[in-house]
């Protein structure tokens, strides 16, 4: 079956701000993206399986093929969230608000995976599950806390507009603070720990290891976009559903629309209770 090449309208960018337009485009993008990420994952897994064990660490080096992509994606996701935060604050873009709200849990998931695989990978050489000496793992943990903060904040408000703005401001402040945190943790690490044994960057990246790594990284990135698009579509459906319920409520009892003017109350006319 030949997929018709999706002919994107010229007003692609302006049109995108309408959610319906986004739903159509994402509906067209999802199948190919899904296929590419599935194929990529399969190829990556096979290559990882076939890669030679590292002379120093033996088989555990194969964990690198998932740890590094996860770590890379937790950064990529946060950068994308920072861009959508800018989109919210500068252009009040409704899709950016949705993108920020849905990307946070996915980013948190990848960061959690990076932490888990990182600690499993370090387990044999460190002897413990959590090695304070490794500053990268600790910074990753702080990034996870930041993600949880953004998730909590974006769901704490009942008004979606304020929720988006508050989360956007926090994301941008976090974005500025990440390098500072990284630097201070590295500095603190050098104070307490001589160079950590597990110099991840230090492993000579032989081509036999580099190729699977790149394939896995690409596959993971594709998977991230699939998950993000799915999550955004769900969020749009959820908002439309809530809107539809409200419409139904009003249409069901038209009489309630203009409630009688109650002079009885002591004039405390406040727009609360919404």
């Amino acid at each position: 079956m030949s997929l018709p090449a999706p002919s994107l309208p010229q007003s692609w960018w302006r049109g995108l701000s309408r959610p319906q337009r986004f739903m159509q485009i994402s509906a067209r993008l999802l199948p190919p993206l899904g296929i590419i990420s599935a194929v990529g994952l399969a190829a990556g897994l096979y290559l990882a399986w076939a890669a030679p064990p590292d002379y120093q660490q033996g088989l555990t080096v194969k964990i690198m093929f998932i740890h590094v992509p996860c770590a890379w994606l937790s950064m990529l996701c946060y950068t994308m969230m920072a861009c959508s935060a800018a989109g919210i604050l500068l252009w009040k873009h409704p899709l950016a608000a949705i993108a920020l709200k849905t990307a946070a849990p996915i980013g948190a998931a990848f960061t959690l995976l990076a932490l888990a695989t990182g600690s499993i990978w370090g387990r044999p050489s460190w002897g413990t599950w959590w090695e304070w000496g490794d500053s990268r793992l600790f910074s990753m943990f702080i990034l996870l806390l930041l993600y949880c903060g953004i998730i909590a904040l974006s769901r704490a408000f009942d008004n979606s507009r304020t929720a988006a703005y508050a989360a956007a401001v926090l994301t941008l402040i976090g974005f500025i603070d990440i390098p500072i945190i990284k630097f201070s943790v590295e500095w603190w690490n050098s104070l307490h720990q001589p160079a950590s044994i597990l110099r991840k960057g230090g492993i000579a990246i032989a081509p036999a290891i580099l190729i699977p790594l790149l394939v896995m990284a690409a596959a993971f990135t594709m998977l991230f976009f699939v998950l993000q698009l799915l999550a955004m579509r769900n969020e749009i459906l959820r908002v439309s559903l809530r809107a539809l319920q409200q419409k139904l409520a009003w249409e069901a009892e038209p009489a309630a629309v203009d409630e009688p003017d109650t002079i009885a109350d002591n004039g405390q006319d406040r727009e609360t209770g919404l």
Partner: protein
Amino acid sequence: MTHWQFVILAYAITALVLTGLFARLFIAGRRLRQELRQMEQKRAANRRNHG
């Protein structure tokens, strides 16, 4: 725990979390679409008898 078991453990956790996330999103999507369709029908029904 031999090295091999660590590798299996790591890949198992990753697979579990990612497929769990994908499944949750996919199922939520279908459920929402279905609920939306029901809502549309109820609204159309309302409009017909309120008509």
